[in-house]
């Protein structure tokens, strides 16, 4: 190889490092390092005033390394119960988001090109106002004196059913979870659906497929990557939410996010909070791995 060729290769390598460097450092500093700290913290004793107990101290006080937080987690089913409850809540959120977002994304993708940008803008417009304010707004929408709740109760009354309360209930939590995460489902679905080749549908129609078959046999399988990325974008953040149950939930609405937050604030038990976070990370990774497997198999089938 001549000199200029070598130069070209080393320049390309340099570019590669320069381009991938900043995100790599970003992940290293802001994701990997904190995760390592969290793992280390989970093997310590809690400090008397919060924080961690010292590694070395006089023998009369708690110090050093332990697996007691893990023993505590597994010796008591109540924590697994909260995990299962949170995962079911996130699954429900993901499923409802998918069912609601798919027609919307399809509608945008099938619209004339010049109006699509405006419609996408409308989908992300709620982000212009603060998340907390939008959740507080649901308190008013769902409150006992709201038009919605009074209309619902007067209809229930006609059928002789006792009035219901919407606010401070699992229902209110689910509504706000879906509301908060819907755009994260619409956008990946839309980017996928937009790229579909319309001739495929024409070909399917020529071969005798009806409207439902054209959707179910052509459009939907092709959109699966969008479905999976949208579901991941909804499911994973939904699992960590703690603000929504705190504001809209009733007396029984507690998710993992609330449990972890409580360990670091009220209970001042950093090691157990770290253990819970690690368990959450492991659960998310397992579910992501399982979904990816499922996605790969479906991909081969298509």
């Amino acid at each position, binding site marked *: 190889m001549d000199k200029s060729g070598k130069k070209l290769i080393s320049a390309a390598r340099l570019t590669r490092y320069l381009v991938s460097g900043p995100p790599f450092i970003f992940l290293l500093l802001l994701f990997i390092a904190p995760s390592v700290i969290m793992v280390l913290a989970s093997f310590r004793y809690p400090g008397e005033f*919060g924080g961690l107990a010292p590694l070395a101290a006089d023998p009369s006080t708690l110090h050093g390394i332990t697996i007691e937080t893990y023993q505590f987690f597994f010796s008591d089913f109540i924590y697994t119960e909260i995990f299962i409850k949170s995962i079911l809540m996130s699954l429900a959120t993901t499923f409802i988001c998918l069912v609601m977002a798919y027609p919307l994304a399809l509608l945008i993708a099938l619209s004339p090109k010049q109006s699509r940008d405006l419609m996408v803008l409308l989908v992300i417009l709620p982000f212009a106002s603060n998340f907390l304010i939008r959740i507080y707004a649901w308190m008013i929408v769902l409150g006992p004196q709201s038009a919605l709740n009074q209309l619902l109760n007067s209809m229930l009354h006609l059928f002789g059913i006792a009035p219901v309360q919407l606010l401070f209930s699992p229902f209110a939590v689910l509504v706000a979870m879906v509301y908060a995460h819907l755009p994260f489902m619409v956008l990946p679905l839309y980017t996928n659906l937009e790229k579909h080749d319309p001739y495929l549908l024409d070909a399917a129609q020529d071969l005798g497929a009806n409207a439902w078959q054209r959707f179910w046999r052509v459009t939907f399988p092709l959109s699966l990557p969008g479905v999976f990325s949208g579901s991941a974008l909804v499911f994973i953040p939904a699992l960590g939410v703690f603000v929504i149950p705190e504001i809209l939930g009733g007396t029984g609405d507690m998710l993992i996010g609330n449990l972890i937050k409580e360990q670091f*604030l009220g209970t001042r038990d950093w090691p157990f909070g770290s253990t819970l976070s690690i368990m959450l990370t492991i659960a998310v990774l397992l579910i992501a791995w399982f979904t990816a497997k499922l996605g790969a198999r479906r991909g081969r089938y298509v």
Partner: protein
Amino acid sequence: MWRGLLLLLFIGSAYAEDVLHLYNWNNYISDETVARFESQCACRVVQDYYSDNEEMLAKLAAGASGYDLIVPTGNAMESLIRQHALRPLDKSLLPNLKNIAPAYLDTAFDPGNRYSVPYAYTLTLIGYNSENIRELDLPIDSWAVIFEPRYLEKLKGRVTVLDSQRELLAAALKYLGYSANDVNEEHWKQARDLIIRAKPYWAAFNASSYIKELTVGNIWLVHGYSNDIFQADLDAQNAGRKFRILSSIPKEGAVLALDSMVLHNSGPRPDLAHRFINFMLDGGNSAELTNLIGSGNPNRDALQYIKPEIAQNPAVFPDLAQLARLEMLRDLDRHRRRVLSRIWNEIKLK
């Protein structure tokens, strides 16, 4: 506009040498009081806010520094003292300390007041809607209305309790006849069962939005803080509602949370902090806070400046017999904190 900003920056830097950093609760000092102190000492007061003790402790534990003055509640203060995070007071700089009523001095958290000067207090009690409760014939002078199903049946979905492990446990322990600071796990389990039995009748565990819910009339009865109930009453009157939000101290006793001014080690200006404490000990200045938010006032000299309707409210200024039934919460050790957290999760999931 840019010129205005530059000017502001310039003014800011001109005063930069005399700044008092105050780390205080949200809405826990009147703007007039701050302005008066600023003109008196020719300095600037920079405030930072927290909404609960845990948040403040967590922020300090994470390394926040530079605060001259903090206003923690007793148990959080105890924890700060034992961490050696506070600076002892120089009482020769605080001649107004004589104004504080002896009942609020020399507490178990800080014997001899080496580090702390009482600022204000709140009670945790029962607040209720005067109109909706009147016809129901309920014993609103007892925690029974919060815990007994036979009363709660009339109030289903209209009651909120504080979303605080310690406060709710304390109310249940008090109702069962134990001390709010009881750490016997058997007693805690009785309290847990009492709470679980009453829970289906409560609308929510709530720490902040119950003020608004009381004001609009959605919630009729709460386990809440005295100044929040005062706020709800003010809001209801300003909105022209036909009802008042009243409060009552349960006869079984309740929690009193005394907030005190303390000097943090990291504060660069203990001299200004002492001046500020002495300034706040002046009856007129101290009364402004009570008139603003209806907080209890440990300052004997302040009483003459306090609006009569607040001064005569027994839920703000309890008499001696009631005072004897009030307890301040002590800090729990790490083992008991974990046990309590476990009980709390059980309560929430049941």
